[in-house]
């Protein structure tokens, strides 16, 4: 596996196959460069979404009530949701780390369809530009919430048509990436890499890609129907013409609930890569984790109506959806127990990626368990449309996927850039981030239990203390994120050179130079054992 015997090939950052300058990036078909293109774009959108979130929190400190109007506030929670969900969390880990790592994980030189991969990025950017355009044109930014519920979304005068078109275009990006990854995993695995020798991230990406293919077209057509409704009045969601708004909710959530597994599964995959490396032992229960990814994708596709327990459906349907919802907890718990068991008796080296991975497990457990609570019909009615929901999905999406994104970024940063960051600064950023996160979102859970409705511009005095704590928490959270991003940007620009394998990982990406050469491997490796094959400590 030695790659440095003779003159090493130039890295993908230097060698663009003969192209130079900006064109070398914008016309690249190299999966690693495309991964970075996604990372830069998403980093920008994340910061915009975060800023909007901070302003919303400021509004909830009553002294700043006149900061924005009620209508602007409606637009802000819509735009915050659209940006964070469609431009950051859904594409997040698959587009950045899936693109960068999946071909390397399976021992390939690129994805199956490199040009289609670049096209996905352009669809993503086009969708993002349309989404941003929708904010500043027409009759004001959309004010429906990110879920675009009919009939309000077909009646409101704001710029919903353009915003849903943006989501439609982004859906194309997601589907094409899914097609690419599935074909890559089926067709491009290196000799000897059987399905059960793939790193677990590949299993997660595989399950995710199937959801992208099977669920995204449903939301695409639903959004087309909203556009047609607004443009021509076809009547499918309009009760005055015989249409059914509840049908909209079903069709929307048939995609948008599985979409939360698009968000979380790759995050779980990343965690499954990080833990063995820092525990220096094989993952516990490889097959359990692999199959739990598939079963989360499968069962998770059948639970959508738990978003609609108050929208009107038969009691029998409610029971079925409640039961199925709780079933999702089983494969999720299998993963958590296997992760914790991996650490047990491991030879643990505590590094920033592990800190974030462990934060993920802690926060994801809170997010997951509050999810089971909402699966119960009685509790669901009580907390429906309250801050409890907001707190819950921020625990899963931000505490889960967001922290896993940071964990993955910190873990693979030396591989992607060839540079090492200042670990002390990362720890210094983690403290306010973790503390602020829990101040912000745990308080939301409490506020929701007390009855604070979500999306309200004003709040009653009894919720005031909670809102103040949450707002202060949002400042700590933002501070921590800024410290970490600044540290990483500094490291990318002038960090110390990172070795090929700074963490002592054993998967394929650590066997090639940092940053990797354009074609990843000088010759396609022959795989002779599973992915987490650590040399016995006694032999070492």
């Amino acid at each position, binding site marked *: 596996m030695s790659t440095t015997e003779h003159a090493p090939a130039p890295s993908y950052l230097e060698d663009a196959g003969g192209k130079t300058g900006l064109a070398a990036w914008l016309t690249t078909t190299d999966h690693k460069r495309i991964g970075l293109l996604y990372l830069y774009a998403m980093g920008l959108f994340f910061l915009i979404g975060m800023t909007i979130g901070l302003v919303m929190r400021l509004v909830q400190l009553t002294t700043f009530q006149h900061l924005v109007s009620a209508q602007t506030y409606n637009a802000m929670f819509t735009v915050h949701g659209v940006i964070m969900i469609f431009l950051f969390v859904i594409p997040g880990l698959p587009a950045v780390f899936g693109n960068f790592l999946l071909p390397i994980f399976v021992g390939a030189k690129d994805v199956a369809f490199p040009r289609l991969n670049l096209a996905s990025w352009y669809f993503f950017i086009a969708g993002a530009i349309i989404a941003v355009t929708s904010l500043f044109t027409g009759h004001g930014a959309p004010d429906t919430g990110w879920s675009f519920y009919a009939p309000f979304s077909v009646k409101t005068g704001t710029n919903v048509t353009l915003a849903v078109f943006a989501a439609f275009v982004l859906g194309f990006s997601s589907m094409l990436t899914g097609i690419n990854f599935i*074909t890559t995993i089926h*067709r491009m695995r290196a000799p000897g890499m059987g399905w059960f020798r793939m790193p677990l991230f590949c299993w997660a990406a595989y399950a995710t890609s199937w959801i992208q293919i099977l669920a995204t*077209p449903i939301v695409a057509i639903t959004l*087309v129907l909203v556009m047609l409704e607004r443009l021509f009045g076809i009547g499918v969601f309009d009760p005055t013409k015989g249409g059914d708004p509840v049908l909209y909710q*079903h069709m929307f959530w048939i995609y948008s609930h599985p979409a939360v597994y698009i968000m979380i599964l790759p995050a779980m995959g990343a965690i499954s890569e990080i833990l063995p490396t820092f525990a220096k032992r094989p993952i516990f229960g490889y097959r359990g984790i692999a199959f739990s990814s598939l079963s989360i994708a499968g069962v998770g596709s059948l639970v959508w109506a738990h978003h609609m327990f108050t929208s009107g459906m038969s009691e029998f349907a409610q029971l079925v959806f409640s039961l199925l919802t709780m079933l999702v907890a089983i494969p999720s718990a299998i993963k958590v127990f296997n992760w914790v068991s991996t650490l047990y008796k491991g030879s643990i080296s505590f590094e920033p990626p592990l800190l974030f991975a462990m934060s993920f497990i802690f926060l994801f457990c809170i997010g997951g368990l509050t999810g089971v609570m909402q699966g119960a019909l009685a509790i669901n009615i009580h907390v429906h449309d309250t801050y409890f929901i907001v707190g819950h999905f921020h625990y899963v999406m931000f505490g889960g996927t967001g922290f896993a994104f940071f964990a993955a970024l910190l873990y693979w940063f030396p591989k992607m850039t060839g540079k090492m960051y200042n670990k002390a600064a990362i720890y210094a950023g983690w403290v306010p981030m973790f503390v602020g996160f829990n101040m912000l979102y745990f308080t939301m859970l409490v506020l929701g239990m007390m009855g604070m409705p979500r999306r309200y511009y004003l709040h009653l005095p009894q919720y005031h203390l909670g809102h103040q704590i949450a707002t202060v928490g949002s400042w700590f959270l933002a501070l921590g994120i800024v410290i970490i991003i600044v540290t990483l940007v500094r490291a990318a620009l002038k960090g110390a050179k990172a070795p090929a394998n700074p963490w002592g990982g054993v998967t394929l990406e650590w066997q090639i130079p940092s940053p990797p050469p354009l074609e990843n491997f000088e010759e396609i490796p022959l795989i002779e054992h599973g992915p987490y094959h650590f040399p016995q400590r006694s032999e070492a």
Partner: protein
Amino acid sequence: MSEHAHTIHRDDFGDKLGMWLFLVTEIVLFGGLFIAYSAMRSHYPVEFHHGGAELNATLGVTNTVVLLTSSLTMVLSLAALQQADMAKAKAFLLTTIGLGGVFLVIKTFEWSAKFHHGLYPGSAHMGTLPPGEQVFFGLYFTMTGLHGVHVIAGMSVLGWMYTLLGKGKISTDRFVTLENGGLYWHLVDVIWIFLLPLFYLAA
């Protein structure tokens, strides 16, 4: 290093797998509309019956025959290519595209007749119909319209394949691209086969 950067990696099976996965997304896309259709039809069985009676079943069936024939010529084009009969392959491919055009012309006549009678979303006449019939025509225009868009897309794809045939980029030993184009065309055909009974034969 750069001269063999991204060496042309050929995997016909992989290309076909990718195409089939894309077809899955298309089927699910229309699947969403079929869900909406089923829900609405179970709400309004009588209105859907009346709506279906307004449609011209003769034109619908004619168009079905046109599309089925075009699928046949598509397959014949691929078969001719595999037997290295380039002239025949091109001729059949052009026939396929032409039949797609015939379908669209018939569709245009049909739609303009509906518009002429004020049967389109948002018309004054439409507002006087019972709600279920309004939804029927809403779905009719949406689903046949989206299908029409796919016919146009399919014709463009096949037209592009025609130029690739001319340039020799599709040839007797490299026919997977044409095969994939054909798969897409058959999908367009198959979706129509479901639309026909759901709308034209609903009465």
